[in-house]
């Protein structure tokens, strides 16, 4: 360890700022909470943010390549619908069901990747169209809300383990077992390179297409985790859960400090953003805001948070830096 703290802070200031904001909202939330911080309230808090955390991680993968994925919501809905059909019965059935759901997520992500990379269509339009297809498939599997999801699994994964919410362990596990190893591979680093400058990445001999494929496929997998988890919370499948998640995931990715122009940020930032957003929402409830005014406050807070990003323009010496 010969890296000074200053260097570490400079390299990771975005995560640190996002983390500070999360801490502040977290402390504020639990001081407002009538039952204060306990394992029970912490578990509920964690469960509320977990689904969005998975979806935001998924969104972050694509945003890092300077793309945008409007199909994360539909993939979530599709995997949630599928889960309500297959994730029940005996333990081996449940395990196989989870495998199937993950496979479906991977497949959806892979298709997005194919259309973007081989079809060379802009990500935003591609995922708009494929998202429609996935919604259709989800509706085909589950025309009306219903189905069944293993209650045993739900109890196990939405409660706590030695005082730590299981859902947080799931998120941490995803980071440690998927994101950290992935980021260290050439493929993972390639995602950052593609997002920073696709042309330069190509000229440096990186396999640009493979990195993009990996990003989209991984995004599909992570979105299916979100669908699984929301299924565990509600114990049903619903093909219409998707749309709201797509747009909120973009918001939480940005709130966490990932740049929409690509190359900066990551999965950890996205998780922090997701939990911050959810904490602010629940805080409004306990702060005694009139329920009808809540959506308005949520919107205004989101706007205020975004405007903070505009502060960087004040210190700008040259107008041309606007378009860097």
């Amino acid at each position: 360890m010969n890296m000074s703290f200053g260097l570490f802070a400079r390299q990771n200031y975005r995560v640190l700022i996002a983390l500070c904001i999360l801490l502040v909202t977290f402390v504020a939330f639990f001081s407002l909470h009538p039952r204060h911080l306990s394992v029970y309230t912490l578990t509920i808090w964690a469960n509320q943010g977990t689904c969005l955390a998975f979806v935001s991680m998924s969104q972050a993968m694509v945003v890092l390549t300077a793309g945008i994925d409007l199909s994360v919501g539909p993939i979530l809905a599709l995997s949630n619908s599928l889960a309500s059909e297959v994730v029940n019965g005996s333990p081996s059935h449940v395990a196989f069901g989870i495998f199937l759901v993950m496979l479906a997520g991977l497949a959806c992500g892979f298709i997005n990747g194919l259309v973007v990379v081989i079809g060379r269509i802009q990500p935003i339009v591609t995922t708009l169209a494929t998202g429609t297809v996935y919604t259709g498939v989800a509706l085909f599997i589950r025309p009306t809300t219903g189905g069944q999801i293993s209650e045993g699994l739900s109890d196990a994964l939405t409660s706590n383990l030695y005082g730590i919410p299981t859902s947080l362990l799931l998120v941490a596990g995803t980071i440690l077992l998927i994101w950290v190893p992935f980021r260290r591979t050439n493929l993972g680093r390639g995602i950052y390179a593609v997002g920073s400058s696709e042309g330069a990445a190509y000229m440096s001999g990186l396999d640009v297409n493979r990195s993009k494929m990996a990003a989209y496929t991984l995004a599909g997998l992570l979105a299916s985790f979100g669908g699984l988890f929301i299924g565990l919370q509600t114990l049903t499948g619903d093909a219409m859960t998707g749309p709201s998640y797509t747009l909120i995931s973009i918001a939480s990715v940005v709130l966490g400090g990932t740049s929409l122009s690509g190359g900066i940020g990551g999965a950890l930032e996205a998780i922090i953003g997701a939990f911050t957003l959810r904490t602010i929402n629940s805080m409004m409830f306990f702060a005694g805001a009139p329920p009808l005014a809540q959506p308005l406050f949520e919107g205004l807070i989101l706007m205020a948070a975004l405007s903070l990003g505009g502060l960087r323009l004040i210190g700008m010496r040259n107008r041309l830096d606007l378009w860097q």
Partner: protein
Amino acid sequence: MVKVDKPVLIAFCCSAALILGGSFFFPNFLSIQYLLQQLHIASFLGLVAAGAMVVILLGQIDLSVPWTLTAAAIASTAIANYAKGVTAEILAIVVGLLVGVIVGLLNGFGAAFVRVHSMIWTLAMNFVVLGACVFYTGGFQPPGEPLQVMRFLGVGRSILNIPNAIFVWLGVSIIMIFFLRRTKYGRYIYAIGNSEKATYLSGVKTRPILFLAFVIAGVCNAIAGMMLAGYAKQAYQAMGEPYLMPAIASVVLGGTKIQGGSGTYIGTVAGTIFVTLIGSILSVMQMPEAGRQVIYGVVIVIMLLTYGRQERVHA
């Protein structure tokens, strides 16, 4: 010499093919009545798409469409509770348009001064307007009813039994073509879409143009909202939700580049007609919702694969 570019031609040909193909199964597809009805439905989407296009040409995007449209409808129908007669009619239109202008200005502020990506700024704007609508209506059916003038524009038929909504769309389209092709502001929009930096360095004040484009989009959404309220005989929550994605699809299918800087207005019209026809034909075929979504998505991908592909990455 009229130059027709490929996307416009393909979108129009596909629309014609849809009508002709459909007429084998449903002979009334070729009736004037059916075609007018399709154009009538398309005119609402067409207005939204016109606004969306101006913003997309800049290289930005407006995701505040759904609730701008809804808010304009709610605000203008609410006037019926406060005023009567001609004053109410005029007031309704003014208030509705004002909603569009205000949202447009705020969106423009985000793009021009805060410099947050418009995808996220307009999304937040959408939440704010949603919040305002829910707060105002208490989450219930909005009070009031559409006034005469909104009914007139939304469902009225005055000349040759042609719906007035089509004339509104036509009028907006003519203004839009003139604006984009013949005025310097229209040309600046294309220029900014190609490179805002270069446009700025050429001596153009780019900020007012950003504001202008978002205000145009807001006003288009507001007009669509008021007409739709007239058409549906009421304003209702989330009435704008089904217009956001189809509007973007219409613009892109019409050959406008999503990165901005290139595209023709006539293409957007072609795209709008095509998107409307697909929806209509699938519902006439009594296709279940699931199949409709799948086909809709697959058709967009196939159309884009034929002409919406980007350049290969190279040095």
